[in-house]
């Protein structure tokens, strides 16, 4: 009943087959795939048995779960999610207690190597795992078993991807990312951000189901289609940065006009994500669009490296351009090599960010980083 069921279901919901193929075309462009992949995606979604997905929550706030519930491109994205069998997800599942645990065990034991695991939240290692237990088992114990047996694991949100808030200094509970808590986990992709944008989750799932592998990723295992460019490079306020037009005070003329938020602490120049392109909540808006600086929430250790949030970037220790922000503005206003100055600044910022991140990654025993990131801009 696979193919006809799906088409009937689409039509019942007022979605024609043509609309559906159109959606698959959109997904191919979001994912930067060749056009022929559109048909491939459509075929994958229509004909395969619903793949099984289990969603684990550990030291989390359920923000990524809420993001998941906001799946935009409403009708069709809803179907794409419907097309996956979510056999375990504490926040939405009907079963509780040992019946819920039996559902998880049923997947792990019944479909070894044939399910997708999604992990939300970091994994505490302090106090022998007692900082997060479910059904009396520690988060790490559960993650090792479930991710260990999964065909692929998606670490959604910055906590699962990089440790996030619980791992911020002084990391009271010994919180780790999935990669660090489950060493050697295969087919892991990170979808950081606080929370992750559901459009990117849908993109990754569709990509995986279509090609049976994850999209190309950067050194932090973030898919390039979503994290390949800086916020700054795609920002709608970039022209104001280049022109040296900055917000100086909350609510001033520049703030109301939509000037650059750089001096108010914007971390867009050192942050990689597609927020400016896909925006949030069905494309309604995004943080810079509503007048607040980017806080760099998809970067490793952003709670420590991007704070204080309202200090502009050159005040970061070790940045090397300290006190030069106003001069960048003056140069730009004078029309002197504005693009060059901005570009150089971005490069420096990135170099610093990634140098710091590498130190941290090395300290955690993560794999040696490649230089792929430097090629992006």
């Amino acid at each position, binding site marked *: 009943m696979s193919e006809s069921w799906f088409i009937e279901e689409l039509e019942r919901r007022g979605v024609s087959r043509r609309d559906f193929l159109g959606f698959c075309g959109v997904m191919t462009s979001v994912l930067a795939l060749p056009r022929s992949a559109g048909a491939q995606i459509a075929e994958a979604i229509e004909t395969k048995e619903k793949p099984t997905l289990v969603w684990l929550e550990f030291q989390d706030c359920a*923000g990524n779960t809420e993001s998941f519930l*906001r799946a935009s491109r409403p009708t069709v994205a809803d179907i794409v999610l419907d097309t996956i069998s979510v*056999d375990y997800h504490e926040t939405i599942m009907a079963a509780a207690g040992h019946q819920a645990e039996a559902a998880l065990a049923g997947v792990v034991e019944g479909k070894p190597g044939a399910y997708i695991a999604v992990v939300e939240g970091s994994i505490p290692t302090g106090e022998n795992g007692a900082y*997060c237990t479910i059904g009396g088992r520690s988060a790490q114990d559960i993650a090792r078993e479930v991710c260990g047996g999964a065909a692929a694991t998606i670490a959604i949100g910055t906590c699962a991807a990089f440790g996030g808030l619980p791992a911020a200094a002084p990391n009271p509970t010994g919180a780790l990312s999935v990669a660090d808590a489950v060493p050697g986990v295969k087919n892991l992709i990170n979808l950081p951000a606080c929370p992750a944008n559901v459009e990117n989750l849908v993109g990754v799932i569709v990509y995986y189901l279509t090609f049976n592998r994850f999209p190309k990723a950067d050194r932090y295992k973030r898919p390039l289609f979503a994290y390949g460019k800086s916020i700054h490079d795609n920002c709608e306020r970039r022209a104001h940065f280049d022109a040296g037009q900055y917000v100086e005070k909350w*609510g001033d003329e520049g703030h109301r006009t939509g000037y650059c938020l750089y001096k108010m602490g914007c971390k867009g120049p050192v942050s990689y994500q597609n927020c400016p392109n896909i925006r949030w909540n069905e494309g309604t808006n995004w943080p810079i669009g509503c007048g607040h600086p980017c806080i760099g929430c998809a970067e490793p250790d952003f709670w420590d490296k991007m704070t204080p949030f309202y200090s502009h970037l050159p005040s970061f220790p070790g940045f090397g351009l300290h006190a030069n922000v106003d001069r960048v503005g003056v140069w730009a206003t004078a029309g002197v090599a504005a693009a060059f100055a901005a570009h150089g600044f971005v490069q420096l910022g990135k170099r610093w960010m990634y140098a710091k991140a590498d130190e941290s990654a090395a300290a955690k025993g993560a794999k040696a980083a490649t230089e792929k990131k430097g090629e992006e801009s």
Partner: protein
Amino acid sequence: MTHVVVDPVTRIEGHLRIEAEVDGGAVQDAWSSSTMFRGIEAILKGRDPRDAWAFTQRICGVCTTVHAITSIRAVENAIGAEPPPNARLLRNLIMASQMVQDHVVHFYHLHALDWVDIVSALSADPAATAGLAQSISDWPLSSVSYFTGVRNRVQQFVERGQLGPFGNAYWGHSAYRLPPEANLMAVAHYLEALDWQRDFIRIHAVLGGKNPHLQSFLVGGMATPLDPDKQASINMTSIAFMQGLIRKAKTFVEKVYIPDLLAVASFYKDWAGYGKGVGNYLVYGEYPEADGANAPLFLPSGVIRNGDLSTVEPLDPAKITEYVTHSWYDYEAGDGEGIHPSLGETSPNYTGPQPPYDRLDIEGKYSWLKAPRYDGLPMEVGPLSRMLVAYGSGHPRVQELVGYALGQLGVGAEALFSTLGRVAARGLETLVLAEKLEDWLMELADNMGRGELEIADNSKWDPSNWPEECTGAGFHEAPRGALGHWVHIKKGEIARYQCVVPSTWNAGPRDAMGQAGPYEAAIIGNPVADPEQPLEILRTVHSFDPCMACGVHVLDPKGRELVKVRVQ
């Protein structure tokens, strides 16, 4: 005596474990335990107080605005910043729309499946379902063909054999009592509400850039510029967009949520006799209607003891203490003491069983939650408390709606103190706020029309304008109840941060005097037809809308190492 363990309690935020002794078909005793801990307040120490809202916001992604609001209020209180009227209105809009969206999601997606049997919906007659739906509401999606489509969709889903999140549940349990038609109607609205919540919450994208985790909060105001003549500000296009969302939300609450609530409740009136809990209610109050410290609140503050609606006491935050007798923490002065949050002292001391474990040590410490008390008494917080305090304080619209609901169900006021009363109060509160939202939006538009565009008190933005040392408290009514943050700032940095949150009040363990917390007290006496399928326990626990990630926090005031962190 059967020892029942429900872990994980699902359809909640966070990690909750319930243990209960069941005998003779009823719960004889119960213990509520939170099994996750992050230590966010310890992480805040030494940081810029202006950043604290973003950190505390991540305590919870479901009630994604509440800690951010409370945090900026606490810091503003400490440093003396005075947010302008527009910031108050923007915040009221954000807070109340959060409440409306969250309550609808709770009813349909987190709570409904305790009352609604999806499998039974398959045998419903679509024509009879349409008749039922049309008899309780003029909501347009009530035709025979509509319900036929929903039933067929569920049928096809079930026939495919992969039940996903609906697998392994308690379908067919004897405690499910709705006829198939009511079940089908509820399933249809479960799906509609899923679309509705996604659509309505776009109001947060306008006001906060995105949801979850809005990003427009500022100490001293809001970061959302207002200007009717600018493209990059909240302008009249934004106002019209929000007005449309608010009106749609109000219609949905009036024509779907409230009729469904009353229809479902009419089949479960006996649940007005279960789940009373501690019978004491505490409310900080919310939605300032003017500026300054003593502004009148749309929903009033107050305390009710022993269900006495004739006496609403004024609230005195100095009477709040927290106990750790049965919590995995130690107090220097001994575990029998209660300590005020402004002096909050928390040293984790995990004495529970090593995972994996089967049972908690319920005689000793058994939760990561502390046990807050008011004047030594356990207090319930949340929608029921707010509606009772508003009712007892003479709030005209609340009195009218409570009277209407009781009349529709044919029950007396005593029915309010129950599992069912809690569910009903949440619905009535949603309606009261959905009706109110447009007033605040129009007030904001009026200000913009008069050229009043101020959004923040910039005079206190620079920490050099702060006192060398200061303390402050911020209070808020979150969807799940009374929330307070206490902050101590020294030389521009956070020296101490403490939160006392709704789920700590409601889900906390016993105290030094042995008094049970509200969840524990409310579960005791619940019927349990089948200890293997404790559906009835879930009903009462879910009626509080647990939000466990909020409940757990720690700050070590001496700044010593909290735990030995083992890095692998």
